[in-house]
C-alpha cells in the first residue's frame, strides 16, 4: 500500500464487494486477475490493490463461471479526476495446457454510495496477421497486453484491435466519506 501525503480537503472512497461470476463462450477453466488504475491525486488507504482468483469450471448447465472473489479497498483523494477503475484480466488454459488470455475489461468504481451490480464486457487482443494467428494457436502465445492497465486509459487505444467475447459480473458496495463536505455533489 502506498502512503502519499495528501493534505487539504481529502475525501475517502471505500469499495467492497466481489467479482461474482462470468459468462464466456467456447472455453472452460478460467481464472481472473484484478488490479486498480487511478489518477495521480489518488492513493490507497487500505485494502489489497491486486489479486488472483481461483480457477473455475463452468456450471453444469453450461451457463455461468462462478468466482465469488472478494474485493475490499479504500482510496483517499482530493480530486475526483482519475477516479479508480477496476481492471480485470481473465486467463484460461488452451488444449496444450498453456496459460492464454481470454479477455480484459475495466469498470469505474461507482461514485454513488450504495450497492451496484456492473456487467463488464470483456475483449481480447487480436493477432495482427493471419500467420500470427495460426502460429499463436500452436505455440499457445496469444497476443496479450504487457500492462493490463492499458484498457483503463484513453491514450494509445487507436492501434488496438480486439475481439469481444463474454462478460464478468462485479458487485460494488460503495461508501463515501467527506465527499459532500468539500463541495462535491453526486446525487
Amino acid at each position, binding site marked *: 500500500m502506498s502512503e502519499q501525503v495528501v493534505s487539504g480537503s481529502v475525501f475517502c472512497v471505500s469499495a467492497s464487494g466481489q467479482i461474482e461470476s462470468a459468462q464466456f*463462450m*467456447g472455453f472452460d477453466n478460467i481464472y481472473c486477475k484484478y488490479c486498480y488504475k487511478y*489518477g495521480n491525486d489518488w492513493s490507497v488507504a487500505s485494502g489489497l490493490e491486486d489479486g488472483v482468483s481461483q480457477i473455475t469450471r463452468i456450471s453444469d448447465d453450461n451457463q455461468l463461471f462462478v468466482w465469488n472473489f472478494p474485493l475490499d479497498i479504500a482510496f483517499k483523494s482530493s*480530486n*475526483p*479526476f*482519475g*477516479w479508480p*477503475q477496476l481492471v480485470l484480466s481473465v486467463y484460461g488454459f488452451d488444449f496444450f495446457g498453456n496459460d492464454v488470455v481470454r479477455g480484459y*475489461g*475495466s*469498470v*469505474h468504481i*461507482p*461514485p*454513488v454510495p450504495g450497492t451496484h451490480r456492473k456487467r*463488464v*464486457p470483456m*475483449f481480447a487482443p*487480436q493477432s495482427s496477421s493471419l500467420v500470427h494467428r495460426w502460429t499463436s494457436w500452436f505455440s499457445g502465445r496469444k497476443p496479450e497486453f504487457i500492462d493490463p492497465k492499458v*484498457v*483503463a*486509459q*484513453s*491514450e494509445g*487505444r*487507436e492501434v*488496438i*484491435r*480486439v*475481439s*469481444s*467475447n*463474454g462478460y464478468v459480473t462485479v458487485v460494488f458496495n460503495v461508501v463515501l466519506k467527506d465527499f459532500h463536505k*468539500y*463541495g*462535491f*455533489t*453526486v*446525487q
Partner: protein
Amino acid sequence: MAEVFVFGQLLSVEAFPKQSLFCKWKLHFGTNWKVLEGLTTGQTQVDEPQAQETTYWCHPIDLHFVTKGIQGWPKLELQVWHQDSFGRCNICSYGFIHMPSQGGYHKITCHTWRPIGSLSDQISQFFTEDSLKLMNEEIITNENRSRLQTQAMGSVNLELYVVFKNFEIYGIET
C-alpha cells in the same frame, strides 16, 4: 469557480449493419468552460465481436472542467468508423450528445445518422457500402442543418458519472 467532473466509458455500439467498428470522439464546449485535466479527443479500439451482435469499445472518458457560466454546456461529438479486413477506414455515421447536466449515473444512448446524397450516390453506396463524408463537420454539433438529408444508423451507448463541485455555492440547481 464551479467545477464539473465527468468520467465513465464510451461503451458499445449496436444495431449497425457492419462489424469491425471504432469511434472517433471530440469534445466541444463554450468559451465559459475550460478543461483542466483529461483528453478532449480520442479514438477507440477496433472491435470485431466473436459471440454477440454488440460491438464493445469500453473506452474510458475522464474529464475535469472548470466553468464561469452555464452557457456552452459541453457536447461530445461521435463519429463511428468502419475498418475493413485490408485496414482501410471509412466513415459510417455521426452523432453527438450533451454531457449530462445532473449529477450521478447516466446510461446514455446516442442515435447516429449518416448523410444521403443523390440517387447516383445512393446506388454506389449500395455496392461499396461506404457512407458519404460530411464536408463541414461543424454541423454535427451545430444547429444549422437545413437542406441535409440523412438516414438513421445504429446507436452508441455510453455510461457516464457526473460529479459537481461548488455548484450549490454559486446557486446553480441541477
